[in-house]
């Protein structure tokens, strides 16, 4: 199943994260080692000190791939280090892998978890060694059942082969690694909420400072890193910081797993050098828009990023460039809006998500997101007023950074605020005409017909006054 070695080596140097991905049948420990795995871990444990590993990671310019883009080396460098005999040393430090991938439109980590679980195990060994952690958890979203099984299998193999447990590979380093499966709540992806969830508490985010690196899980130093971030580590240690920087032609180092979804011809995932343009991603890799559809806008990195427009197509998909264009790289997954899908309905769908997933801790988010849903629903149903647009703009201010407990509400603001700006005409048209102009006939996919039960509410001037089944979203729980 392993291709010839020259081809494999070439791929390992250009597609480090995905060259060993096999979604049908992920590599066993032995096959992973045969393919060049655990070389980075061996090098770190046998040839390097934790400080030297940290320096290599810092030099590599690796930035967090979970959405925030914080430099990984800097995050790790905040963890207090202790001499072995130091009485003040805590019993444990913790490394936690954030595999709670729940950002709508994001599905990259799933490929790494299902396709090459040993890569993550190796990454966590090296990373835990670097920060001096002896216990590590993979915080996995509950819906990824296949990932849980494959990770546990990989961990069991690693224990059996002395890559986990006591005296790993005849060194003094010991590490226990556990999979914790969550039960479905977006806010658990926020690192301090994740820590509360692991502690068995209701998963509200914590106030910072103290930062988790100093006082995290059970009050001990804790580092939380995303799956894709960690998966880079074995390759950086194996091939060096300079190799990693050279992977990308611009200021951001490495490769990135980009994605595209929505009504494009070929939705999917691609590992590409950091900084490909949106145009290349959308048209070369995702095959462009489906027949009969035109690009209206897109979210460049998941649900909590600002819309960009066709005029931004030549923007490189790196942290700085997307930032300058007015959005965020986020998770690097394009969510593509076509011209037959209603932008108001799209924003309503996004805000419903944030309203449902708000933990309820702070007022701007708990009350702001549902009110945005109410106002957007009125507009979408043709009952909106022009003042509602001002109210929505005010909400964008009330829910912005610095006024909320965590980044969830500001994440909701990003698509809302940019949509109000870029798709203003669509909002105004809904209000002026008292209906949604994206009728079922125009959508070309029977979309509007799905809301057949709303036939009574049809407006004379409109084919179909709703884009979406407003009455959805019930839950049996709570």
């Amino acid at each position, binding site marked *: 199943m392993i291709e010839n070695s020259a081809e494999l080596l070439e791929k390992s140097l250009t597609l480090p994260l995905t060259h060993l991905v096999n979604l049908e049948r992920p590599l066993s420990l032995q096959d992973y080692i045969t393919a060049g795995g655990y070389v980075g871990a061996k090098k770190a444990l046998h040839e390097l000190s934790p400080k030297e590993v940290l320096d290599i990671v810092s030099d590599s310019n690796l930035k967090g791939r979970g959405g925030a883009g914080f430099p990984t080396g800097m995050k790790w460098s905040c963890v207090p280090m202790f001499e072995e005999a130091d009485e003040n040393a805590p019993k444990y430090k913790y490394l936690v892998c954030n595999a709670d991938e729940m950002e709508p439109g994001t599905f990259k980590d799933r490929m790494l978890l299902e396709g090459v679980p040993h890569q993550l195990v190796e990454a966590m060994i090296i990373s835990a060694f670097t920060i001096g952690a002896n216990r590590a958890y993979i915080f996995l979203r509950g819906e990824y059942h296949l990932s849980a099984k494959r990770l546990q299998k990989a961990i069991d193999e690693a224990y059996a082969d002395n890559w986990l447990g006591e005296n790993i590979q005849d060194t003094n380093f010991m590490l226990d690694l556990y999979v914790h499966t969550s039960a479905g709540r977006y806010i658990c992806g926020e690192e301090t909420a994740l820590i509360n969830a692991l502690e068995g508490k209701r998963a509200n985010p914590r106030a910072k400072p103290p930062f988790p690196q100093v006082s995290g899980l059970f009050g001990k130093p804790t580092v939380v890193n995303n799956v894709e971030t960690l998966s880079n580590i074995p390759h950086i240690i194996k091939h060096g910081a300079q190799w990693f920087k050279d992977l990308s032609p611009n200021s951001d180092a490495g490769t990135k797993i980009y994605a595209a*979804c929505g009504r494009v011809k070929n939705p999917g995932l691609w590992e590409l050098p950091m900084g490909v343009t949106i145009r290349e991603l959308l048209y070369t890799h995702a095959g462009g828009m489906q027949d009969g559809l035109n690009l209206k806008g897109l979210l460049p990195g998941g649900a909590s990023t600002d819309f960009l427009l066709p005029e931004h197509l030549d923007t490189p998909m790196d942290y700085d460039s997307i930032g300058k264009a007015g959005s965020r790289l986020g998770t690097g997954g394009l969510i593509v809006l076509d011209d037959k899908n209603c932008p108001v309905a799209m924003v309503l769908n996004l805000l419903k998500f944030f309203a449902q997933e708000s933990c309820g801790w702070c007022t701007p988010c708990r009350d702001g997101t549902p009110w945005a849903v109410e106002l957007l629903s009125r507009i979408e149903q043709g009952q909106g007023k022009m003042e509602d647009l001002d109210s929505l703009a005010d909400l964008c201010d009330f829910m912005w950074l610095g006024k909320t407990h965590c980044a969830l509400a500001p994440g909701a603001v990003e698509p809302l605020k940019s949509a109000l700006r870029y798709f203003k005409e669509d909002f105004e048209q809904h209000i002026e005409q008292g209906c949604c102009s994206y009728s079922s006939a125009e959508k070309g996919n029977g979309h509007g017909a799905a809301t057949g039960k709303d036939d009574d509410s049809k407006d004379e001037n409109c084919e179909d006054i709703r884009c979406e089944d407003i009455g959805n979203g019930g839950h049996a729980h709570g």
Partner: protein
Amino acid sequence: MQIIKTVTPDYRDYLSAEEVAEIEHEVSIMETRESAGIEALKVVQSYRDWISDDSLNAIAQLLAISPAQLEGVATFYNLIYRQPVGRFVIHICDSISCHLNDYQSVLTAIKNHLKIDYGQTTTDGMFTLLSNVCLGGCDKAPVMMIGENHYQQLTAEKAIAILNGLRQDPEQATANIEVEHD
């Protein structure tokens, strides 16, 4: 000394030995008993399909935390059921990629076929219908999850065929998911 008899139920009278053993394993890999809360709820739910008040009280007693604290955890999560559910819980993804790819027509077809709305269970106790946030199958939208299986690239017809298949052969749902690598 007088021994005071209490009428508070003991968790050992309620939880099975298997349930207690599995929960204690989860406790053993954490620092505190309370941190096994969500895992404990999932363990009991795997045996009993949902978390009744009695289950909740028993788990809270086992973990030495208040039922109110555990309730705060249980109700926080989408996949902990605090009401009885059917044999199969259908989780329809209603997030953005599925929205753009017309999950509504799949949802409407399922509602009409099963004659239930969100939060309801069919009269034969086979299916409960719930929504789910993004299931991470955005390139193959629309998607739904039933048990441990994810079904992708759904159409109304395909979704109904899946439900009919489960009704005819309920065992197939558990047979589908296996660890493929050796």
